[in-house]
């Protein structure tokens, strides 16, 4: 067991994949001698060479489009998109090519491409550096989407994503890059929790609180604070956003009867909407109250002096927990 920052944990996972499979290649902007703007690929080009850790021209569609060709040739490209807000030029290649190739060829051509995306806010950046675009991709059939919340998962799941024969969008919470945690680098991938499974990270009985990526830590903190008030919050780290591991969420909601979902992305058409609808369909008779969403607002990601208002924090999540429990909350007395 070693103590690693989030960024180092991903780095260690990438290193392991590069060591274990000669078909794994990394590509992205500034990932070589610089080691990436967040240093996630630090030292990898030096150790594995420029042919396997490839600095690419500044063209996101080019990165993903050439990755499609490399996958056609039998490679497992791992692409870094430098920031969440820079992924849109690659959107067409991801949605029209990466996601559909397996279906189009009825399995003759696989797309084992991993697309790493530092996402989310909270680091005081200018526009386009703090976005949460995951719902665009969870809406796209043919993609797997995961968001990691802690160094151990970061280490394990990057390797699982690379080993997946299906394309994986791998969202990294950039504001957690420097958080440290225990990482078992000897973990057996074949017995580790599979890529598409959710994890209950805090047991509880009154409310189910679903979070992923950067807000898992916030959700756990909120659960601890709620416990002081005698409220028992079960926190689920979704881990996989597509597919969502509904059996785990269902089992929890059947127990608690109340559901709160939180994410940084805006509310309309977000993942929270999908989860609320699906859980309502699947366990309507177990629900004691309407599902609650605590999310970013339906605004463009704001300038950094306002981002703390946009991002769900501990208090807003607790306010949502109160709403789910029918306790006094900020919307008490408000109809609809």
């Amino acid at each position: 067991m070693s103590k690693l920052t989030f960024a180092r944990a991903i780095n260690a996972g990438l290193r392991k994949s590069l060591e274990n499979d000669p078909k794994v290649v990394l590509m992205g902007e500034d990932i070589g001698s610089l080691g990436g703007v967040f240093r996630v690929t630090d030292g990898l080009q030096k150790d594995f060479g420029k042919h396997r850790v490839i600095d690419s021209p500044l063209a996101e569609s080019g990165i993903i489009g050439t990755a499609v060709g490399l996958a056609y040739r039998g490679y497992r490209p791992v692409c870094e998109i430098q920031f969440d807000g820079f992924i849109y030029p690659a959107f067409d290649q991801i949605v029209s090519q990466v996601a559909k190739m397996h279906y189009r060829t009825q399995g003759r051509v696989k797309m084992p491409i991993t697309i790493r995306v530092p996402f989310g806010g909270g680091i005081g950046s200018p526009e386009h550096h703090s976005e949460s675009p995951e719902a665009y991709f969870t809406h796209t059939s043919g993609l797997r989407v995961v968001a990691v919340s802690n160094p151990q998962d970061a280490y394990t799941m990057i390797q699982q994503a690379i080993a997946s024969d299906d394309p994986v969008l791998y969202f990294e919470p950039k504001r957690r890059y420097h958080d440290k945690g225990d990482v078992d680098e000897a973990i057996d991938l074949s017995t580790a929790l599979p890529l598409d499974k959710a994890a209950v990270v805090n047991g509880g009985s009154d409310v189910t609180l679903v979070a992923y990526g950067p807000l898992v830590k916030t959700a756990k903190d909120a659960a601890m604070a709620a416990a002081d008030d005698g409220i028992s919050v079960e926190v689920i780290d979704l881990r996989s956003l597509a597919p969502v591991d509904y059996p785990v969420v269902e089992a929890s909601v059947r127990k608690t009867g109340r559901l709160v979902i939180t994410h940084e992305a805006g509310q309309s058409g977000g993942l929270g909407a999908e989860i609320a609808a699906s859980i309502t369909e699947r366990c309507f008779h177990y629900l004691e109250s309407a599902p609650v969403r605590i999310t970013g607002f339906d605004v463009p990601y704001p300038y950094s002096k306002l981002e703390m208002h946009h991002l769900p924090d501990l208090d807003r999540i607790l306010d949502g927990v109160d709403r789910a429990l029918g306790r006094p909350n900020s919307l008490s007395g408000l109809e609809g």
Partner: protein
Amino acid sequence: MLTDQAGKGVHNDTPGPGQSAQNPLRTGGDLLQLVSPDGERISHPEFDVWVKDVGDEALCSLYEDMTVIRRIDAEATALQRQGELALWPPLLGQEASQIGSSRSLRDDDFVFPSYRESGVAYVRGAHLSEIARVWRGNASYGWDPQRINLATPQIIIGSQSLHATGYAMGVQLDGANTAVLAYFGDGATSEGDVNEAMVFAASYQAPVVFFCQNNHWAISEPVRLQSHVQLADRPTGFGIPSIRVDGNDVLAVMAATRVALDRARSGGGPTFIEAVTYRMGPHTTADDPTRYRDPIELEDWAAKDPILRLRKLLEAKGLLTEDVEARVKAKADAVAAELRSSCIGMADPQPLDVFNHVYSTPNPWIERQKDHYSRYLNSFNESVEEGAL
């Protein structure tokens, strides 16, 4: 040479003179032509050597392939008019570009086509039913790409240029001497992806050939809307050499493609070929070119018809014998008949096939929807049974 539909790449003619010869590249300007529209063989000091092995038999075989794919095109258009195909993108007029280029490829080369390269698919060894089924709506792919080293038809304009470049980067990593060729049209040169592909190909000196069929029309938009310079001038800015070739001259297309493939194989990096041709038919069977195109332009190009030109050359050489004519006609008839019968006899997919192969492993969301839809479909059977009781 006759085509063996079951085999792959039976048409691989001997490559050119190899690395010893110079690669005579030009940037824009002159149009490379080895056969005039009147069928006269034009000698060229640099390019002749690249087709010196193309003898009488090979010329007849090129003529056969061009005639056969024109026949495939006519038959498929008819099948669409008869409701047997949902759509068809005609290649009429582009036979020399497609045959000259694809006949220059080796089996191990990999090709990324657009949606109009049915002639290329034929040469690579795709079955006729495989060519038809995408356009009938029976499948989203025609052939197995790994069987004939030909990607599935790409409908997003220019997208495949990046796939070809990435594949070529993989070839480099493998240390192989395979070449990769991407087909696209004049309209695609405006797409970001084609420009990004040229950036990547130049940066990594990837062994890729960009084969641009300038057929003058992107649906209704003339090529001058895409570019104010010749398309062959554009790659120069990326540091990629180019050849502007008469796309209706099969011999010139072959020479240009062989030069480009040789450069790719010998570490020379990417090449851009502008094959200047003409889309004599509509964009697809859903298009009506009379709304945007001057009929006189079509007449001008009809005089430069690629098959007519090759016929004149063969006649001048005394090669167009009754025997050859009969053989080519019989082949075209047989291929057209096979296309028709395989198309009409194609089994429809099953309803639940809609859920298959979205992912390589079972996906709980899709399994659930499949299960629910299966129950829904079965509910009709049950209600029939109940009604019968």
